[in-house]
C-alpha cells in the first residue's frame, strides 16, 4: 500500500483531505487508483500533475516504480520560464 500526500489545488479538490492510501506499483497505477478512490481528483489527474518521489519531482515518468517505502507527494503540474 502506498501513502500518497496531496499539495496545493489537489487538497481543495479532495475536499480538504491531504493523504490517501492506494495500491500501485508505479506512478501510472497509483494515479489510476487514486482517481478511483477520490473521483473528485480525476479531472486534475487527467490534466496532469507532478509527483514527488523521495524528493525527486517527476512530471511525466508514469512508469517510475513505487513502493511503500517511498515518500510520495502529488503537486500541481509545474512549469518554468
Amino acid at each position: 500500500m502506498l501513502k500518497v500526500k496531496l499539495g496545493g489545488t489537489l487538497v481543495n479538490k479532495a475536499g480538504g483531505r491531504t493523504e490517501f492510501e492506494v495500491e500501485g506499483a508505479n506512478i501510472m497505477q497509483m494515479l489510476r487508483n487514486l482517481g478511483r478512490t477520490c473521483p473528485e481528483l480525476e479531472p486534475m489527474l487527467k490534466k496532469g500533475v507532478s509527483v514527488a518521489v523521495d524528493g525527486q519531482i517527476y512530471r511525466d515518468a508514469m512508469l517510475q516504480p513505487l513502493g511503500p517505502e517511498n515518500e510520495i507527494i502529488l503537486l500541481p503540474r509545474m512549469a518554468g520560464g
Partner: protein
Amino acid sequence: MPLDANTPDLRTEFKSVGTRPNRPDGVDKVTGRARFGADFSAPGQLVGLVLRSPHAHARIKSIDTSAAEALPGVKAVITYKDIPEQEGCDKDVLVNIMARGTALYDGHAVAAVAATDAAVARKALKLIKVDYKVLKHVTDVDEAMKPSAPVLHPGRFEPVDYNSLETASHVSGKQETKTKTREGSNIAGRYVFGHGDVDKGFKQADIIVEHEFKTEATHQGYIEPHACVASVSSDGMAELWVCTQGPFMVRDVCASLLGMDVSRLRVTPSEIGGGFGGKTTVFIEPVALALSRKAGKPVKVVMSRSEVFRCTGPTSSASMWVKIGAKKDGTFVAADAVLKYQGGAFPGSPVEMGAMCAFACYDLRNVRIVGYDVVTNRPKQAAYRAPGAPMSAFAVEGVIGEIADKLGIDAIDIRLKNAAKEGTVSSYGPTFGPVGLVETLEAAKAHKNYKVKLGKNQGRGVASGFWFNFAGNTCVSINLNVDGTLALALGTVDIGGSRASMCLMAAEELGIAYDDVRAIIADTSSLGYNDISEGSRVTFSSGLATIKAVRDLKKRMCGRAAKIWGIPEDAVKWENGAAHPAGANAGGFDPLSIKEIAAQASATGGPLAGHYEINAEGAGPSFATHVCDVEVDPETGAMKVLRYLVVQDAGKAIHPSYVEGQYQGGAVQGIGWVLNEEYFYGKDGTLQNAGFLDYRIPVCSDVPMIDTVIVEVPNPGHPYGVRGVGETSIVPPLACVANAVSSAIGVRARTLPMSPPKVLAAIEGVAASKA
C-alpha cells in the same frame, strides 16, 4: 534513481567540461549575420497586422470588415470566425489570440489583415469597424478580489464568501459586507501548502514580524519582439519560421487551434533575442497561419514594441502578507503567508509556484502558504524566469531581514541557522536530496564583498532564493561526418548558450576537441518532440540526451572497429577519441581514431550516428544567496547599486562563462524589477508606458559588474552533476536590493518598484517621525 537514468557513477574529472571556449553563435550575433525572427522572408510574402482593442474591457457588439476587404492590396481579413473552436484546443489560448465576444484587456486582438505592404495593411486596419460597449474594468489584484469588482468571466469561477478569505482578515483590512455575487468571482483558484501547526508554532516565538507587500507586473524585456512568417500552401501543408522558446509547442498548439494535422505543420525556430519565459506560448503565430491560409500566400507578422508590452505576457503583479515567528537565537518556529497574484485576463498566474518557493529555503516545522490566482483586465501573464518565485521571496526575505536586524543577528547567520539541507522536509512537501543552500551562504559570507566597510547612506542586503528546475521531453541526434567531425542536432532552442555546452559535453564524452562538434537547433520535422526551453531544463535535459546519444554513437563506432579487427564488439573500448582493444586478450591492434573510423564508415556499413530520446527526470533544485550594497541619495531618493554578488549552486558548471552570464542576467533583471520596472495603467485601464522610453529596464550604467561565485554540489540525477541555473538567479534580487535600501535609509520598503519618489517619501517619512 530516475527510471531511465541508467547512468554510471557521477563523473568528477573532466577535460572539456569546465573550460570556456568561444560560443559557436558569437560571430554571427556580433556581425548581424544571425537570423532572428524578423529576418526570415518568403517569396511573395504579405504583411500581417493585428487590430487590437483600445479598451480594457468591452463587449464586441459587431465587427464590420467589408471596407477593409475591399481595399486594393488587401488579401485577407480575419476575425475569430476564421479560427473556429476546435475540439480539444485550449480555449483560453484561443480566446487570447483573438477576442471572441469580449475584449478582455487593452491590446486584445480583435481582427487581423494581410496586405501587400505595411501601408495598405495599416490603412485596412483603420477601415475595420468595431462596435464596442465599454464595460467596467479592474487591473489591481486586491480590487479584483472584491465582490464589487466587475467579473471578467461571468459564471466561470465559483462565487466566494469574501469574508472567509484569508485576504480579508490578514491583508486588506477592508472587509466588504457583500459576500456573494451571482456572476461568480475573479478568483480562479485557491491553493494551500505547508505542514505542522502554524498557530502553535507562533506561540513559541519570542519575536513575530508580519507585513504586507506589493510588487508590480514586469515584462521580461526581451530585446527581440515576437515575429514569424507563416506559409500555408493550397494542399494544406504549412511552414512557420518563428522566434520562440518552443518550436514543438508552437507546432502542436497552432495545429490544435487551427484544426490541422501536426504532420502538416513544420516549424523552424530562429535565433532568439531573449525570451526569459515570455516566448513559451503563442500570440501571433496562429493568426499568421490563419491569414496565410485565407490569403494563399506567406504572411509575415512582426510585433511592434508597443504590442509586445500591451499584448504579450508580463509576469503577475502580487499583493502579499507574510508572518514569521522566531526564537531569540534566530530559530524560525512558524511561518505563514497569503499570496495573491493576478495573472491577467485568464487563469494561470504562477501563484502556486510562488507559494511553493516562498519558504523553500528554510527548514520549518510549522508553515502555511495560501495562494490566490486572480484574473484582471490585463494581458494574460506569461512565464518569467522562476515564475512566481521572486515576488514571494521579496516578501519572505524582507521579513527575515527585519527579524535579523531586530535580534541583532548577522543576515547570513540567521539564514544558515534555518537553512534547508539534505533531509529537510520542504515547505511545499517533498524531502530535499543533496542541495547547496548552506554552501552558497558560506561562500557569500567568505566573499570579499561581505567584508567591505560601508559608508554614509550606504546599506547592505542579503537574500536567498530557490527554484525547482525541470527536465522533460528531449530528443537528440549526433551524426559523424566523413572527416571525423560531428553534427549535433538539438531540439531545444538555445536561449542561454546551450549549443556550446552541448558541444562541450559531446567532446568530453568522445575525448575529442570542442571545435570538432558543431551543434544546430533542428526544425520540428527533423527530431522527435522536445519540450520548451524553459524551467532551467536545457543544459540538464539536452545535456543528458547528448551524453546518451554520444554513448550510442561510441557503441556503434566500437562495433565498426570490432568488425575491422575481426574481434567481438565487447572486446573494444573507447578512450581519448579512439577505439582501442579492451585488453591484451583482444589483440594487439593500433587504436582507430574517430577520424579513421569516419573515413571508413561508408566501406564498413554506412553512416554512423547516435541518437537518444528521453523524458528526462532528475533535475536537482538550485539555491542561491545574493549580497548587495547600495548607496541612497537622501536628497533625491535615487540609489546606486555599488556592489552585487551572486552565489549559486550549479551542480557542475559545463561552460562557466555561460553559468556566470545566467547569474548576472538574472541579477540585473531582478535589479530592474526593484528599481524601476512597472506597468502603469490609466484610469481607463489602458497601459500608459508601452515602450522602453517609459518602461525603464536597467542599462549598463545602472549596475556594477555583477560578481559571481559558482558553487558545485553535484546533482545525482545527471551523469556530470548538472543542475539548471537559468532561473534561481532572479529570485533573490528583489529582496536583496530592498534589504540593502532598508539598511541604508532606515525604513523597510515593501512596495515595488522602489523608484526615487517612493524612496524619497520614505526618507522624509522617517525624518518627520523623528522631528
